[in-house]
């Protein structure tokens, strides 16, 4: 009997296999350039996932995740360019900085109801955007800073470094996969169920003994962690950091990716991000106004398919399996003597 679960499992395996084979498969079919596009998509999917975690599972719409992305990014960039750190300490600094600022801002933000929460997340990200722009010597402002990347590891004669495109690809794949796996575990865990309960009915949640404020804060920090990791990866990937990535535009785009992909699903952010980045890559060579497509699609999805692509897919899958079940039951009946 075919269940949605089995189909999803199969697709997951196929997808992972594809990702692992991509560095050899893609250049053979298309062009090596697309391998680095896939790497970039993975980084941004993680960022979209941070939005999705807060909105899809906790019910909090943050329009300011670019702040934590920015801290992750600058933690790495400043760590390497100014502090002369090597790879892992810089990575650690970036993630730590993102989590710290997420905790600090979350303590205040999570107290607010959703309208004001959305607004204050933008305000916080704007404050730090302007700070980053004004402290130009340190951050390079909107122009940003470039730096060369130290190797990831060196054991004896073997060096692993991002200058090797394949190594870079697999490092990103591994990190992003690990984060998604952790997210999956959390969502299935008692903590994850409690978060969904809070989203569904926060009064009831308090009445059964859940500390709503504390749990929301934990979720906020987790989302900050994901955004921070994606920012750090971005800095490594581009050897570049710029304040412009902290602007609310970036946060907003991630919200669109998450919603178009499918809010409240694990793969929604990946699907949404892939769609928009592929469109950007395909369209921008011929027409520079691809942002128009983003805007139109955002509106269309929100009006026509608010559950997003993965949401639609899941619904369709359930219906298709139910029908397949019914049909086979009917044929069984017909073949009865």
């Amino acid at each position: 009997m075919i269940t949605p679960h089995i189909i999803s499992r199969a697709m997951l395996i196929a997808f992972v296999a594809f990702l692992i084979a991509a560095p050899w498969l893609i250049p053979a079919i298309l062009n090596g350039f697309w391998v680095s596009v896939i790497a970039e998509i993975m980084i941004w999917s993680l960022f979209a996932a941070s939005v999705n975690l807060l909105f899809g599972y906790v019910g909090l719409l943050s329009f300011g995740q670019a702040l934590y992305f920015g801290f992750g990014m600058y933690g790495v960039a400043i760590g390497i360019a100014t502090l002369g750190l090597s790879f892992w300490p810089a990575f650690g600094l970036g993630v730590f900085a993102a989590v710290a600022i997420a905790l600090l801002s979350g303590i205040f933000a999570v107290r607010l109801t959703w309208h004001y929460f959305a607004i204050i997340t933008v305000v916080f990200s704007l404050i730090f955007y302007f700070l980053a722009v004004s402290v130009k010597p340190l951050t390079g402002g909107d122009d940003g800073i470039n730096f060369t990347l130290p190797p990831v590891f060196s054991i004896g004669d073997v060096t692993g470094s991002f200058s090797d495109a394949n190594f870079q690809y697999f490092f990103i794949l591994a990190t992003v996969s690990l984060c998604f796996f952790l997210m999956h575990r959390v969502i299935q865990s008692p903590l994850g169920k409690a978060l969904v309960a809070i989203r569904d009915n926060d009064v009831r949640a308090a009445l059964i003994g859940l500390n709503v404020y504390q749990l929301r804060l934990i979720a906020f920090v987790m989302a900050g962690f994901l955004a921070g990791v994606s920012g750090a990866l971005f800095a490594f990937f581009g050897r570049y950091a710029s304040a412009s990535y902290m602007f609310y535009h970036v946060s907003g785009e991630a919200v669109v990716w998450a919603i178009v992909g499918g809010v409240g699903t694990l793969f929604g952010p990946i699907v949404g991000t892939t769609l928009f980045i592929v469109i950007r890559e395909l369209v921008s060579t011929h027409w520079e106004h691809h942002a128009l497509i983003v805007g139109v699609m955002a509106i269309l999805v929100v009006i026509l398919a608010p559950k997003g692509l993965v949401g639609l897919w899941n619904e369709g899958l359930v219906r298709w399996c139910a029908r397949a079940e019914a049909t086979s039951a009917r044929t069984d009946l017909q073949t009865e003597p």
Partner: protein
Amino acid sequence: MDTLLLLALNGLIWGLIIALIALGLSIIFGLLDIINIAHGDFFMVGTVMAWFTLELTGNFWAAFLVVPLIGFILGALIQRIVIQPIRNVAALTIVATFGLSLILQESVRITFGTTPRRILPPIQATFPVFGINYELYRLFAALVAIVALAGFFVFLHRTKLGTWMRAVRHDRETAIAMGVPAQRVYVLTFGIGFALAALGGVVAAPITTVEFRTGVDILPFCFMAVIIGGLGNLPGTAAAAVLLAFLEGIIQSFADPTIARISSLVLMSAVLLVRPQGLFKGLAK
């Protein structure tokens, strides 16, 4: 000293223009529960339409009539087509207005282009104010803004439509139960919101650059005015806009404008966290 005076006056006048725009944002937020990310772009479209009016007719004054009207129609259409279907899922409206913002910016890029343009003020004289020769057009702009603000409050309190709007903002269910046509009020509100922002755009066009990014700069400021003034507190929002612009203008004379902006944002956060009903409670009805 002269620079300080100049900046203070400029700030004051900008504040009046922003008050106009922020009122539009406030009624959309207060009545429709919508965080309108595209509102700054409504202003920007106003400036662009003013430019086009000037290009096509050679007459800038026509823009004062034509642009707000077009803005009203656009706003009404947007409400019916985009907002109405998703009115009940508040979070999705933010995404929709963000999409709208992208569409407006790109449409302007396509039609108007990316080069910033300037419009020469239709009044070129200066007028002595407190010992400096001040651009007469700016004084005129202030006058227009004040008249428009006054007109808006008269509309809100003395006309049937305005009363309906206040009723719905105050207590939606009761208003509907009493027969106020809520749907029409929503369309009206969004239309007026766009029109106010567009009017602000026309007034501001000769004293700012006309380009597709001006909306992005102005949006945070409008939100600041709405929050610090107090959501639903229209006079408070107008007062906050003027005050904030005035203060930022003064601070600019001795500090980096970015610092001024950051302080306003920090103030806004404080208000959100400590006194979400805004600082000007006394002015509310």
